[in-house]
């Protein structure tokens, strides 16, 4: 009786080894291998469409950006990956610095993607855009009281701001953009003020900040636009109600513009599968893909002239910070240390 589970598990193991080592049939039209920091569910439908159109099959490994980068570095010239897709320009910049990306000359990409959303040397190209504006509780905060990120450090907002942990790359990039605008000392002063204004110790993700604000923990939340957009389209009533209580204020419209970031892609240095890889990237910059990609995740298309989703249109237009996003990555480590110093958890 006791012996049987052991036998069962052992035979399961044997069967599994056999099944898992069976080679997959290769396709005639070729393949392209993608390391993606965007989770599979978000890009798979688009990849399927690409396969349907071109006959090129797309293989995906998705994981955290930093881990993928480590994998690329250690695999070196034998890496099977052709394309790296990741969120946040900080990560794209690290990939470029690590030498795992190589520049592409593609007229299609250059034409589709505005200059500030791609690497000046063509190492990576932004594919979708998101903003990190100030979100406020309608009725509790008068948008007239809001102006800039800088002003969030004012004493007026004592115990009334919600923002997530500084371990998150979105906050790291935001603070990096402040360092570029004001230098380190001034940014540190600002961050100290912001931390003093937090209503609760940072915890949870961006959605949690929005929920907390809607529930009354704080008056202001800093969060990415697509989280709000997804909550507004949620099938969960409570989630939708929370999002509807929130208004979006576009800060710094008088000066450098609202902090934005991108998801993007780059060509792997050691790939020999260049044609297929570039085909995939160009496909992702096409009108159709831009619209789907943006719509499915409530992100902004990077390509000018492609229609926004209804939800994003309802949030209004804004002036985006025009700093080249590649520069944010250069200040990432500095931003992390600065946040350590001001005790931004």
């Amino acid at each position, binding site marked *: 009786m006791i012996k049987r589970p052991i036998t069962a*598990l052992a035979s399961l*193991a044997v069967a599994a*080894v056999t099944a898992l080592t069976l080679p997959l049939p290769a396709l005639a039209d070729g393949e392209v291998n993608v390391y993606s920091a965007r989770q599979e569910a*978000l890009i798979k439908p688009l990849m399927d469409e690409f396969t349907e159109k071109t006959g090129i099959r797309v293989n995906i*490994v998705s994981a955290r950006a930093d881990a993928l980068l480590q994998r690329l570095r250690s*695999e070196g010239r034998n890496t*099977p990956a052709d394309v790296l897709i990741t969120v946040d320009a900080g990560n794209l910049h690290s990939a470029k610095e690590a030498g795992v990306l190589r520049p592409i000359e593609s007229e299609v990409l250059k034409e589709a993607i505005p200059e500030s959303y791609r690497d000046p040397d063509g190492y990576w190209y932004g594919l979708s855009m998101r903003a990190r504006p100030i979100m406020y509780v309608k009725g509790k905060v008068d948008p007239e009281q809001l102006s800039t990120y800088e002003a969030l450090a004012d004493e007026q907002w004592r115990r009334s701001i919600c923002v997530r942990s500084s371990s998150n790359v979105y906050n790291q990039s935001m603070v990096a953009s402040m360092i570029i605008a004001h230098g380190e000392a001034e940014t540190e002063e600002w961050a100290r003020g912001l931390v003093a204004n937090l209503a609760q110790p940072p915890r*949870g993700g961006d959605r949690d900040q929005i929920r907390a604000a809607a529930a009354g923990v704080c008056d202001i939340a800093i969060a990415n636009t697509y989280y709000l957009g997804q909550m507004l389209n949620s099938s969960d009533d409570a989630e939708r109600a929370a999002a509807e209580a929130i208004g979006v204020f576009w800060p710094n419209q008088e000066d450098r513009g609202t902090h934005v970031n991108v998801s993007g892609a780059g060509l792997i240095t050691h790939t020999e599968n260049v044609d297929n890889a570039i085909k995939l990237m160009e496909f992702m910059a096409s009108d159709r893909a831009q619209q789907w990609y943006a719509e499915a995740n409530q992100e902004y298309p990077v390509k000018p002239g492609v229609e926004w989703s209804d939800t994003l249109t309802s949030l209004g237009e804004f002036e985006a910070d025009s700093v080249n996003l590649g520069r944010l990555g250069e200040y990432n480590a500095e931003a992390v240390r600065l946040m350590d110093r001001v005790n931004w958890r």
Partner: protein
Amino acid sequence: MKSALATLGGALSGPRWRRPDAWSIGTLLIAAVLALPILVIFAHVFIPASEVWEHLRQTVLQDYVVNSLILMLGVGVGVLLIGVPTAWLVSMCDFPGRRIFEWALLLPLAMPAYIIAYTYTGMLDFAGPVQTQIRELTGWGYGDYWFPEIRSLSGAIAMLTLVLYPYVYLLSRAAFLEQSICVLEVSRTLGSSPWSGFRRVALPLARPAIITGLTLALMETLADYGTVEYFGIPTFTTGIFRTWFGLGDPGAAAQLAALMMTFVLVLIVLERYSRRRARFHHTSARYSRLPRYRLTGWARIGALVACLLPIVLGFLVPSTQLFQWALKTTHMWMQPQFLGLVWNSVSLAAIAAVLAVFLSLIMAYGKRLGPSRTTNAAVRIASMGYAIPGTVIAVGIMLPFAWIDNTIDSFMREAFGISTGLILSGTLVALVFAYCVRFLAVSLNTVEAGLAKIKPSMDDAARSLGSGPRTVLRRVHMPIMRGSILTALLLVFVDVLKELPATLILRPFNFNTLAVRAFELASDERLADSASAALAIVLVGIIPVILISRTISRSRPGHDTPA
């Protein structure tokens, strides 16, 4: 009493033979290979301390140390308070529902820590249904009332305690069940009450098992990333990630990891020390059915509550929440790919479990045959993987594997003009290897505990009858320790099922598991969508958990006499 037993045990064990070198070499070899990723991480320590280290020391290091210590202390006390009494109650006492509690108390083992954290946060957060209900009923607002904050250090302690106490329960129950009736009968005839029998005889005898369970729970606590990260608590694990990837300094991150390892070393030394003083195999073969204490009145109600509470909080409540979410998101699991996820998870877990236990058997037996400082140390280092966060292990595997692949490739290119590419990296081999490194401690501890209970006189008898070491293992030890082997298999199986970070980064193209799917959705803050995959992990995990419990019940000497 104990010292009498120990003397007897010592006298019986006799001189040890130290001949078969093949076993020692095999043990050493396996240990060395499994310790490789850990040593690779440690090698980073020798990168000279950068100014990042100075920065850490001045700012956040103290937080990491203090929080990790409090977390371990809290979880340690918690798992002991839940695990040991419940184990004692279901093994020694009689009260309604006992037979159900026996296996149901193990159920939280199937619940990954990060998933229980997500579900409780969903329920108990300020914006969650419970607090919203309170506010609607009372008209209070934020700050008008006190409610325990789930996303705090104490919240993390509670979450980890709820899913980790089964290790202590499992091992102490097995120990209570194996205690020779004579010992307890003697204590009863000497007039000790049930309580003092527990305190003065059963508990000290079960101590090594309890400590082993505690060590496993604490190592798991140290390695936890998902829960503390989600709760925003700065600990060693979150610090390592932040330093490695946020500050871009692998050297300082490894130094943090090394500091964390000293905690583990203390744990291991503690465990060894608790075993050192006595031998714990039983010297009498005279087993008979243990009469249970019949609980009545308040004692009965108390026992019921004590056993019911951890099951309700650690399993029923979170799975009900998951079930509710899964019902709302039928599109997530009503698709053919979902079965593929289940198959991938189950098959990977089965392969890893069989391999890990096989290696553990060789190592444990090798140690028994020829115990030496070198093998001991090698085996200890190899089993430290359990306390190291999965991502760190994954990096420790990626580096040497890629190096081997690239070296072979370069050689082949130069010698024969052909490229072999990556042979190991990015394959399931790397993944299964990672599981073995990560979960060796689980299988090794269980197998070793089982082996330790077999009297060395058995070996001597079999050997004197002309059997070689291999025959002894196969024909004498393995049949006797079937229970331990099965327990080890199933524990690793469940652990692999839940494992996330190493799977995420080491897997091949287009290969997804339930844990990967659950995490990807949850990390995108789509808790409801992630529920079906999370629930599937729990459901698949329940089967082995129930099997473990049955094995242990059968392990009781004389179990076939009706209870």
